[in-house]
């Protein structure tokens, strides 16, 4: 792993390989009576790109984001390489070989993930939650967590437990945690879904500012098409085919 003295931005100039290179990726979710099949014929995401997965509820955004976040195994993949910095990793083979600790290491070092449902640790304070990704990497306490909390408007809440926060505040803590360890890749699943439209706009703009400042690669799942244009994100191609007779939904993402 590159040391923290080598900020990934500099490494990036040396490594021009795409962060994600995906072809013929598929994942099916079958449950009694209904089925869902996601496929990605081709997908390339370059370093520093800001990409949006746009679609209606249930179209498979979270499913794809989980796979890109190395949090869920694909059923099949012609190609799926993840190259945040340095040498690319062949993700399907890691899943196949059960190398869950290697996948965990990749997530820990290179990915910041804002879960759709927040995913805060209930027994840690706001500050500790934000700092957690840094702690797990053994990064020094250099005020990053406090600065993030301040920017996210959580300055007065540092010592609170998540249970004592509003839903919107929790979402902002989740954003802080995904950014705190300065990962080169940030995934966000509807990071502003639970906020009122005005706050959602502010928080989203703030989130993008922070990502921009880091120069990180960003992939956001959202159902808000207007947001995509406004924020200048690259929307992936998407179509959805429902086959009520067979009870099957086929979703595709590409780009």
């Amino acid at each position, binding site marked *: 792993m590159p040391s923290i003295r080598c900020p990934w931005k500099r490494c990036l100039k040396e490594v021009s390989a795409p962060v994600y290179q995906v072809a013929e990726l598929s994942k099916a979710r079958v449950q009694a009576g209904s089925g869902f099949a996601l496929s990605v014929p081709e997908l390339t995401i370059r370093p520093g790109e800001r990409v949006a997965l746009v679609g209606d509820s249930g179209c498979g955004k979270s499913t794809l984001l989980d796979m890109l976040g190395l949090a869920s195994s694909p059923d099949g993949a012609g190609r799926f390489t993840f190259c945040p910095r340095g040498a690319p990793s062949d993700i399907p083979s890691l899943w196949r070989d059960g190398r*869950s600790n290697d996948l965990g290491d990749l997530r820990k070092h290179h990915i910041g993930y804002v879960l759709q449902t927040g995913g805060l640790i209930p027994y840690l304070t706001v500050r500790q939650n934000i700092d957690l990704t840094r702690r797990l990497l053994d990064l020094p306490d250099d005020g990053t967590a406090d600065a993030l909390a301040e920017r996210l408007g959580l300055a007065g809440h540092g010592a609170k437990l998540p249970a004592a926060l509003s839903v919107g505040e929790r979402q902002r803590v989740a954003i802080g945690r995904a950014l705190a360890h300065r990962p080169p890749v940030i995934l966000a699943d509807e990071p502003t879904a639970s906020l009122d439209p005005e706050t959602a706009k502010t928080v989203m703009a703030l989130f993008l500012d922070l990502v921009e400042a880091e120069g990180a690669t960003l992939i956001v799942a959202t159902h808000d098409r207007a947001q995509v244009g406004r924020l200048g994100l690259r929307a992936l191609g998407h179509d959805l085919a429902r086959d009520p007779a067979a009870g099957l939904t086929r979703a595709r993402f590409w780009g």
Partner: protein
Amino acid sequence: MGTTLVQVTRLSVRDFLHEWRMSVCFVLALAAVLAPLLILFGLKFGLVDTLRSRLIEDPRNREIKSVVSGRLTRDWFAALEARDDIAFLLPRTRAIAATMTLRPAGSRANVTRVELVPSGPGDPLLPEGATAPDGLGTVVLSAAAARALGVGVGDRLTGNVTRVVEGRRQAAGTDLGVAAIVPDHRFARPAAFAAPALMGAVEDYRDGFAVPGLDWPGADKPDAPRVYAGFRLYAATIDAVAPLRDHLNGLGLEVRTQAAAIETVRALDRSLGAVFWVIAVIGLTGYLLSLGANLWANVDRKTRDLGILRLLGVPTGGLMLFPVVQAGLTAVLGAALAGLATLAVAALINRMFATSLAEGELVCRLLAAHYLLAVAGTLACAVAASALAGYRASRIEPAEGTRDV
């Protein structure tokens, strides 16, 4: 890796404290099942073993009493003494000649008539470390005699012996020191334990002879070897009682032993032991199963939190460590609580039965080795169950584990 495990330990302890109500319940639940088991062990190794050691150690169970007066010579005693299953053997003088009247020196009150029991070094009835009666000058009193006389160790007594010679009543006295006291549970009747020399002197005086050593007047004793009426005999172990009895019966001596009672108590001890182990095994199995199930269920409850840690890159070992730390805390705190509860209950039980116990005897005694074994077993089971549950949680894909419903 090392720092990750430190972080995980910290997180785990934080969670344990954050959920303190839940943690207290787990600790209490553990202690509630463990404490009765510890008390059961305490009773087994207190009560049952007290009974057993009373049986084995109580010299009265090893005593073989001669029933009828015999005519036993020194040679006869020498032959018997050669056996290696004998702990203590002394000749007895005739019972009729083995009594004495005692009173505290310089006093006319508390005159007490006691039986004389031959004694000497190694007498199993003497308390540990007590001085044995020696020569013509000291005796050991039974507690009943000491009470009646109102004397203690080191006090002086005057001993009187009477005889009737040619129709005239004669009396002789001597000064005696109290060397030791034999407790009631060893010897209940008023008695003075005397060295063979004093026993012989009293018998001689009764027979009308003079005792030069005590300046007691009388006829000169003819120079014939003494013949004894009986013996005080203790087998080396309770197992030696029956063979010795058979040997003496073979010599034509009728004896009385506790052999039958010993066999009854031993059979009872064996059945009690078996019952104890059945209960202990059932109890321990149930305890370990409930402990394991509890901890397993607790990890199940935390699948989401563990899934988030997994998503943030905590490795399999860390995910196993998380519940292991909490299980370890639960086990240690629960076992400590159970230990304290057991000590309290044991103290209470022992106080309740204090009156029927001798010094150093306990009804409920929790041995340190048993407690440590219980703590070790609890820890091992807790760690195994939670590590396994943690491993299973680590097999869940992070995307599944973090899904909130």
